[in-house]
């Protein structure tokens, strides 16, 4: 297939993309396991699929909507909204200061 093997940097990059923390040691360990998995899943290339269309939904349903203005049965009270939040202020969720602008 000519695929480039995963490097430690690749693994660290993936972790960054996925907002995960990995130290160098973990990166090396996971690199091996990820590489094994990727090699295995390439067995799909044994199957001919050029004329096959992909399935993203098993059950052939389409056009499922709700009517605009329908009664809202799931609105949450402020207590419910914040009962699991660690940081809040003025009825807002709070995070460390973000510098944008």
């Amino acid at each position: 297939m000519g695929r480039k093997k995963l490097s430690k940097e690749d693994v660290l990059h993936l972790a960054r993309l996925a907002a995960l923390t990995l130290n160098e040691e973990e990166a090396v360990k996971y690199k091996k396991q990820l590489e094994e998995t990727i090699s295995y899943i390439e067995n799909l290339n044994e199957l001919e699929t050029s004329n096959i269309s992909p399935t993203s939904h098993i059950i052939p349903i389409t056009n499922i909507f709700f009517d605009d203005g329908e009664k809202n049965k799931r609105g949450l009270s402020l207590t419910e909204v914040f009962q699991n939040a660690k940081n809040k202020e003025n009825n807002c969720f709070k995070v460390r200061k973000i510098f944008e602008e």
Partner: protein
Amino acid sequence: MSNYQPVIGLEIHLELKTFSKMFCQCAANYFGKEPNTQVCPVCLGFPGALPVPNQKAIEWTILIGKALNCRINSFSKFDRKHYFYPDLPKGYQISQYDEPIAENGKFEIRNSRFEIKKTIRIRRVHLEEDTGKLIHSKNGTLIDFNRSGVPLVEIVTEPDFENSNDVKRFLEELQVLIRYLGVSEADMEKGTMRMEPNISVRKIRITNNNTQNNYWPNYKVEVKNINSFRFVKQAIDYEIKRQIEILNKGKIPIQETRGFDEKKGITYSQRTKEEAANYRYFPEPDIPPLVFTNDYINSIKVPELPYQKIERYISQFKIRFEEAFILTRDKKVAKYFETIISKIRNQIAKLHIKNQNYKQIIANFIVNKKISTQLSVDEFIDKLIDNLKPKEVDKELLIELIDKVLKNNQKTIEDYKKGKTNAIMFLIGQVMKEMKGKAEPKIVREEIERRINKN
């Protein structure tokens, strides 16, 4: 010799004014509401919550696409667009990637005679959800999710613009169009209409035998945080200038996202533009695909659009372009005008206008605000008839006032006699003022002339 030509494309976001949000039944109108009071597990991205699309939002997206002359795809779907940010509760935005609802349309920019100056191609119109709002506090950032999940339509143009004036015209016309469709407030200040231009500059090299070699730029700069049409022009002009300066030095501007500083009137660097692939798009598995039959698409009717109204007013009603343009800026005013026109048909005789075009007259009255459009149609018509009645002149009073004015304006009379015929306009004006408008200017003029010539 090199010349530079700007290459500008636009990305516009419109918040739809549906009752409910895009994927849940929370109220979509969040303006002025207390933070986090219009939320549910879905728009807060709670574990286990699932999206179900709002039918009206989809219908309105098709409507916008049709109004922009797009092809409506018979098969469409939602996709997940991944990135991490505190105002994005699921860690992905449900949007559309490779199969948007509408594609390949066009929208015309017109000049002051409303003739087509330039056609801007619309690349796509798609539907997505809005994010929460960040509020900066003293020692942190606060997040309000009332806006999270509000339906957002994104319109992307091809980079067909070459100057900031066209961009401004385009946005103004688009705003009128969207308001005509009744699908969004399209207000830049309130954030229901947002836009981001992407700007590059290309070199046009004219060689010795006058052939043009065009080099398409391989970078583009996106500018964010422009909050009004006025600033759009400023931001674009500044950015073009900045890029030309860099190109003149033989360098290429960095591909990035820049912010716009209103106070200083400049753009500044923010972050490098992410490649599309980093969003790791894939089809939204929680939402079955959308299939639009021709019957369904045809059933969504586009109302008469502003430029079509103008054309009709000019050709059918035979009114001038200037008034037609103003009347059609607001759909409500246009409707008001049209209702008057149709209702007044059997009362035309009362207008005492002989061969004049009553439609033009009515147009003038509205445009010049001579009669208030707050009145009901019937009230307007009554006032109009009253206004156009030939005024009964108190002849004695008129003569008295004319003499008074003439007495006080001897110099003007001399000017008039010397051949400055327009001087009489001043005298007429003075008399009209004294008469408090209760006189026919024509008759006043005749009388003044008679008295002057008498003396």
